[in-house]
């Protein structure tokens, strides 16, 4: 029989007490894991949005609002500039985007690199319901909208087809093969998208040329999304270059929007981590308290062991073994409970966020719990091993 076997048998005898001792560790670990998991979900949401939100850049018409004044009188605001981007600018924009990326990444390939997806938005009424029709380049749009999934039917193949968003299809009671009247011409529903949780659900996507001719907007687009596949693509540079070289448009890097959201998330995370730290500290006191009590209730056993020849080091080893056991059990349960806690509370803090299990937190939780448990045990164990054997029996 080995030393640790003595520990295991003793733990089996005192199961409830040992679990109670582990409770302090569980609470501390649970809180830290829970908060870290929620925090990482918040971050992941943003990163996924960054990933999912296909474009790195959005180019919109440059619209300036001029405040009209006559002397000191304000005459209201005049919107100056076109609401549309001429389609011919597309080529120039592509050139800028592609050459910037080629430069930055040392690509010699002369083919198209960036995905450029133009869009033409038109408000219209279909069967009495107001909707937005979006003229798109089917191929390019598909690449940008990485999260699109078909619920029914097929993607856009013909110029006179329509791809309907989930909620729009519901509202209009549309099915695959149905005909939609489009300002005079008609299109057939080729497919219906699955719900995306974005504005796409309320829109109908039709090849650009069809929308342009239906609404008399030949050669015009409302905006375009640029997506370059790489994280290191010089998005800001491209935006700058477009802004400088192409009149009447404004390029906005999507990252900037996401970055500010990230900043907010970080602030939230720091607050929650501070709370977690406090809880951990409180939990630590609980653990220390319990471990001290645990050592104290074993004073007689310690006396017995020393009377039969246990050295102080062996006594301390026995307590450390028990602390490790408590750390492992507490860490395991704390990780499970913490993740469960994140599942329950997370969506309340970050609305509509899916909480993902973070397996990397498991070894972290284990190590932290073991360290805490051992640290809390060492001092009382050393103290206990110094009591005179005769006194150990006396106090019982």
């Amino acid at each position, binding site marked *: 029989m080995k030393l640790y076997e003595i520990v295991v048998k003793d733990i089996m005898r005192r199961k409830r007490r040992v679990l109670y001792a582990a409770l302090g560790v569980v609470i501390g670990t649970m809180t830290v894991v829970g908060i870290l998991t929620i925090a990482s979900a918040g971050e992941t949401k943003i990163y996924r949005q960054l990933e999912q939100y296909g474009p790195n850049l959005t180019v919109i018409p440059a619209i300036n609002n001029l405040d009209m004044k006559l002397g000191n009188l304000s005459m209201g605001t005049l919107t100056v500039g076109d609401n549309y981007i001429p389609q011919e600018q597309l080529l120039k924009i592509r050139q800028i985007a592609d050459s910037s990326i080629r430069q930055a990444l040392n690509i010699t390939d002369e083919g198209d690199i960036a995905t450029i997806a133009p869009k033409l938005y038109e408000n219209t009424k279909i069967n009495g319901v107001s909707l937005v029709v979006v003229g798109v380049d089917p191929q390019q749009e598909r690449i940008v909208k990485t999260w699109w999934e078909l619920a029914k039917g097929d993607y856009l193949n013909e110029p006179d087809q329509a791809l309907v968003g989930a909620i729009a299809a519901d509202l209009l009671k549309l099915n695959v093969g149905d005909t939609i009247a489009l300002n005079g011409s008609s299109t057939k529903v080729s497919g219906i998208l699955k719900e995306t949780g974005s504005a796409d659900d309320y829109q109908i996507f039709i090849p650009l040329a069809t929308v342009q001719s239906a609404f008399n907007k030949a050669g015009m687009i409302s905006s375009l999304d640029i997506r370059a596949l790489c994280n290191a693509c010089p998005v800001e540079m491209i935006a700058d270059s477009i802004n400088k070289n192409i009149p009447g448009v404004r390029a906005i890097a999507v990252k900037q929007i996401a970055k500010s959201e990230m900043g907010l998330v970080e602030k939230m995370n720091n607050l929650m981590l501070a709370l977690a730290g406090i809880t951990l500290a409180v939990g630590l006191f609980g653990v220390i308290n319990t471990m001290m009590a645990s050592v104290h209730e074993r004073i007689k056993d310690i006396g017995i062991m020393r009377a039969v020849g246990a050295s102080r080091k062996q006594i301390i080893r026995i307590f450390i073994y028990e602390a490790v056991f408590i750390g492992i059990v507490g860490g395991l349960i704390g990780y499970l409970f913490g993740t469960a806690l994140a599942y329950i509370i997370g969506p309340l803090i970050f609305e509509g966020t899916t909480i993902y299990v973070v397996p990397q937190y498991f070894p972290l939780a284990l190590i932290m719990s073991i360290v805490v448990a051992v640290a809390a045990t060492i001092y009382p164990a050393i103290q206990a091993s110094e009591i005179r054997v*005769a006194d150990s*029996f006396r106090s019982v």
Partner: protein
Amino acid sequence: MLKVSNATKIYGEGPTRVVALDNVSLTVEDGNFIVIMGPSGSGKSTLLNIIGGLDYLTSGEVILDGKRIDGYDENALVGIRRGKIAYVFQQYHLLPSLTALENVLLPLIFAGDVNSEKGAVDILKGVGLEKRADHKPSQLSGGEQQRVAIARALVNSPGLILADEPTGNMDHKTGYEILELFKRLNEGGRSIVMVTHSPDIAGYAKEIITLQDGQITGRTKQV
């Protein structure tokens, strides 16, 4: 051979000052069976604790096989408890989570002595408990528990066994069985110092020392 010289043990200070032992001297020759007797509070258990190093002296000396052990620190005392001196207590003091055999093995585990483990079964047999080897203390009678404790005390082959009221928690009949066991051990060559407040045990001893209020009041040798 163990010698106690002018041992004094004082607890507390001022109004709570208690002189538990007052200038006590005694010698334990090899193979002796000494019984220390006296009323409650006479200092018998304190004396036994001092002899065995379970407690410290206030002044005086304890010499074991020519070496002074009263000043030993805990680490050095460990060496004594692993094979020189062993203890048997009134409350048996077995570890409740271990079986009888495991309790007997306990000293060997701490001493790191794997070779003597087989001998432990024989020692259990020697005290008549081989059939109870797998039982935990809660499943053993008082007498059986004490026999396990005695077996445990023997497993490191100590020269001296210190027993503090070993039969105090049991009925007469069981008590006599235990004393017979001690007598056998003594006849086998081990020195025994036993504390008791029961005069019936006297018949087993080779030497009786009486204590009162921390002082030796009588020393009788008998055959």
